[in-house]
């Protein structure tokens, strides 16, 4: 990944920056120019909740090249307390300890370091809330 492409997403990957529609109040993550809820083009910055629950999950055992050295790893769809859903890894977990609705908390972690471009890429992952 090129440096500019990586840098563009830093507000979302490091700080979970989202946008709230001024008209229908729907939160978009990442922010988007046109609200998916009502079509409005007017929004304000919003910050996502760091807490959520697992909607569904898997353990990836056959990984693409940039993740090959990490496999197996857990990836889940997490529904945050404000209703927004994201896909992310569940760190420090093997899979057996997870269930539907398991509470998780966002952390900043290294996501991958094996890709082209030589950038060590960071972003959000989640850990089990009870571990904290």
């Amino acid at each position, binding site marked *: 990944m090129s440096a500019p492409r990586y840098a563009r997403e830093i507000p979302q990957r490091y700080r979970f920056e989202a946008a709230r529609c001024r008209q229908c109040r729907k939160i978009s993550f990442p922010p988007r120019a046109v609200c998916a809820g009502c079509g409005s083009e007017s929004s304000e910055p919003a910050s996502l909740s760091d807490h959520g629950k697992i909607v569904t999950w898997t353990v*990836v055992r056959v990984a693409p090249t940039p993740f090959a050295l990490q496999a197996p790893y857990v990836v889940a769809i997490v529904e945050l307390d404000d209703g927004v859903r*994201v*896909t992310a890894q569940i760190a420090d977990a093997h899979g057996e300890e997870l269930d539907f609705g398991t509470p998780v908390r966002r952390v900043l972690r290294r996501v991958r370091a094996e890709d082209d471009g030589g950038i060590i890429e960071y972003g959000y992952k989640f850990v089990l809330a009870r571990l904290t």
Partner: protein
Amino acid sequence: MRDVYVIGAGITPFGELWQRSLRDLFVSAARQAMVDAGVDRLDGMYVGSMSPGLLVEQEHLSSLLADYLGVLPAPCVRVESACASGGAAFRSAFFEVASGASDVVLAGGVEKMTDADDVTRALATASDQEYEAFHGITFPGLYAMMARAHMRQHGTTREEIAAVAVKNHENALENPNAHLGMRISIDQVIASSPVADPLRLLDCAPVSDGACALILGSEDQAKRAKGPLVRVTGVGAATDAIALHARSDVASLEAVARAAAKAYAMSSRGPRDIDLAEVHDCFTIAEIMAIEALGLVDRGRGGAATSAGETSRRGRIPVNISGGLKAKGHPVGATGVAQIFEIVTQLRGAAGKRQIANARIGLAQNMGGTGGSATVHILEAV
């Protein structure tokens, strides 16, 4: 709009075809289709191919393939909608003929996958690169998450999901072009190597090379062609968010349901009228969700219906008689066209040992990614 017929069909074997290049494969299928239709010229051509740039470092397929097929200067467009590229190409060709702009148009699809170093990564480009693939999720992983949700919501069992693979591999035994014609058992599926929990290797369609082509023609062209007539009576397509997490229900395929509603309405047919269906079983769970979204079974009953044999060759509604993506093979861009090829072959009564008796109305459902794009086509023998 004018009536549109499929007047010619051609296909290559699907599999690990080490001796054959992308252009060889396409030309072989396309020439067969042109000979079958009895045409020596094309007014236009649409070719579905998902990722030749990543897989064989070749873009600009349109003119390359028109050149090697010997139809220059006929206009050609490569169509991309991930795994629905073939269905999208067929849809484009349909509207070109239906509009009256052209009389003879080729709809093709091709993918050369086995030359690539990292197919998993190339396929992952059909997901949201910044918000899905960045986090290490793969396509088997996305479908695994859908499978887990389906099991939770509907009580679908691991054995019911495996039954899709067992059925489709058995169907492929009668398809000489299939990649994986072999008999497998439920136990073998469940014991195969884990890919993304709860899915295993035998839940996944193989990485295949292959091509398929169909010639679409106006009524005048169809009357000139030999053989039984097959008319395209229903065309539907729809989109959805490509990020699975952005959809309200990860265990259903809304774009497929919407595309199907359009195709059913256009053809004045409903799920009960369909004699056989080819659906997009890139993973076993995908077939279960597809037959539910198409209304061929009640929502949530896809697993149980498959397990009970309702979708088998002798069942109430035969699904994936060709072997499906799962066992016929899945050269991504060719898949959507090859599904329609199977329906056309069945409606012509030319499917040999896998022929479904009295097949009059068939449906083909193709989708991209985890259902971010979908096409549904209904064809009828006339």
